[in-house]
């Protein structure tokens, strides 16, 4: 397992930082912003303002370290737990919140943002990234598609088909598995008998690599060459980022039923954000003032995003019908009229 930045903020023996201090500060700011969003998400759900919310606390470095390897026009195809990566690649917090309030417009990021709405079904979306990568290549663009998914998703048949297509056609795809040790309640060891998830890439003829997923530098050090290789025609890579889901699966879940709080406590020591802060501080590149300023601005952004989301009027009855096709079918027009007539009566 590739490890570079240790929990105490020091570099592992013989390891070099893959980013300079300015780059590191930038990604650190993103980590902090992501956590602000995440904490807010959980809080809003408790107030009934969001539907169930899936926290990614503990997985920020895995997501942002990987997404930072993308170029702006690259594709990102990720899940309900990957808001940090999606946001980093351009998907506004506003849309992410909006989706969680229960509004389809959350799925509509601004033009130019090549991030699909988060996948709610487990496993089906990786092949979409494969298709995107394939389509880009056929259109002679050198875009890469990155797809993020959990350890649990590797049990689905669609994972296999996506990996296999990527290997057969040597497509520019990066598979980023966040092994956070659980699929809801099912521990990683009961999901598959293979020792690592990374080794599964061997079955598809391309490299797999396991990294400390709470280590921004390690994740980035794997993701950067993977995207570069993909872009230059070298084919796909599977990255297994070993991390941990600090919070319940979603706000509807009770982890006390399936895991020991000691385990969770132990992972606190491995927090992906604290170690970057320690690292920057040890290099004199960070201090409490900067931290306070960063936290304030992150909180402001998040507040503005939820306010904007909640300000929107819900979709009206007519709009339920209006995005099924480019043009409504006569049947949908009839149904829409029936609903409107009923409401007017």
């Amino acid at each position, binding site marked *: 397992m590739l490890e570079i930045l240790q929990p105490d903020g020091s570099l592992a023996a013989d390891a070099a930082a893959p980013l300079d201090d300015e780059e590191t500060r930038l990604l650190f700011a993103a980590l902090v912003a992501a956590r602000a969003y995440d904490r807010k998400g959980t809080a809003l759900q408790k107030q009934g303002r969001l539907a169930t919310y899936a926290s990614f606390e503990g997985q920020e470095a895995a997501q942002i370290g990987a997404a930072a390897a993308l170029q702006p026009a690259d594709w990102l195809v990720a899940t309900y737990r990957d808001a940090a990566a999606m946001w980093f690649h351009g998907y506004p917090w506003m849309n992410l919140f909006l989706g969680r309030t229960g*509004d389809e417009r959350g799925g509509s990021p601004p033009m130019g943002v090549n991030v699909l709405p988060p996948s709610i079904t487990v496993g089906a979306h990786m092949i979409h990234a494969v298709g995107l990568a394939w389509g880009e290549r056929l259109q002679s663009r050198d875009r890469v598609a990155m797809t993020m998914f959990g350890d649990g998703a590797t*049990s689905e048949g669609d994972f296999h088909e996506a990996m296999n297509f990527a290997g057969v056609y040597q497509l520019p795809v990066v598979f980023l598995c966040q092994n956070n040790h659980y699929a*809801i309640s*099912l521990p990683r060891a009961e999901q598959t008998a293979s020792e690592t998830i990374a080794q599964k890439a061997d079955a598809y003829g391309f490299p797999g690599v396991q990294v400390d997923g709470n280590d921004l530098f390690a994740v980035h050090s794997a993701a950067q060459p993977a995207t570069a290789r993909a872009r230059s025609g070298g084919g796909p890579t599977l990255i297994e980022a070993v991390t941990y889901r600090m919070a319940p699966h979603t706000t509807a879940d009770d982890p006390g039923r*399936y895991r020991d709080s000691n385990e969770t406590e132990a992972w606190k020591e491995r927090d992906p954000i604290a170690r970057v802060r320690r690292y920057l501080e040890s290099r004199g590149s960070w201090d409490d003032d900067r931290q306070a300023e960063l936290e304030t601005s992150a909180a402001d952004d998040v507040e503005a995003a939820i306010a904007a989301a909640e300000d929107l009027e819900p979709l009206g009855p007519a709009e339920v019908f209006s995005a099924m096709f480019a043009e409504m079918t006569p*049947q949908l027009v009839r149904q829409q009229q029936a609903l409107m007539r009923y409401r007017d009566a």
Partner: protein
Amino acid sequence: MPEVNMAQALNLTLDHVLSTHTDTVILGEDVGRTGGVFRVTDGLQAKHGSERVVDTPVAESGIVGAAFGMAISGLRPIAEIQFLGFFYPAYDQVVSHVSRIRHRSRHRFTAPLVIRIPYGAGIGAAEHHSESTEALFAHTPGLKVVVPSDPADAAGLLLTAVEDPDPVIFLEPIRSYRRLQGEVASPPEPVPFGQAARRRQGSDVTLVAYGAMVPDALEAAEALAEDGHEADVIDLRTLVPLDLDTVLESVTRTGRAVIVQEGHRTCGFAAELAASIQEEALYSLQAPVQRVTGWDTVVPLRRAEHHYVPSADRIAAAARHALKGG
């Protein structure tokens, strides 16, 4: 007999069959340690062991395919799919294999398994958590399709499902898990398949519903009664086998029928019933059979979901329309 909700009624029944039917096994995602998303299997793994209440990987096709093999080997597996929207990866296993092995082998091999699936909208859940595509199962030859509407039926129909010699799709209305309380016999008593229940007696109009829509149909009947119209309310309980006779008897008396279905309109189960009613009772109809259904749209998310799901109000409006001749 104590009052329980539907989730509890199902839990009691599963506990009962695990205790009395040594050939039963439960398998599914998170059914063991957590007792399932809706706690329907709560406590069962602790009591019956992790060999018989199995937490599986996230692999719906694998769950159903493995349950199918188990059933052929002589067990009666009870598989759980977490939500109907996550059933589709298992579609091929069900339509190509589970539903066909008896026919394919002319009764030589059989697959007596139950697939329990929470279905339906009304709780403002995320996308894919609100599906009501029971018509897919009804359209697939070789499957029995059960949709209970209250705790007692849930228990009784599940018991029958487990004992049935053929594959049963058992759809549990999410919205009803905790909406209604009811008495459940202990041990539960089987409720036979193919016998609809008349939930209210009336002679002016027939309301036909199943699953989550039954309470709404009853609410609509109350509203109609306030206007002086008495509705016959029929709860189908099982779509396959279908108790068409009870429906026809009622419609022949009332001359008017409203079929309520949460699923999408086109080719939904309401279409089947409307087609069958006009086939068998055209000359008794005083008005077109009305369909109150979900639309041919994705089920909207929380903020607009109410525009989709049939309500007591929409049902009553359709009945009034029928009472006026359609």
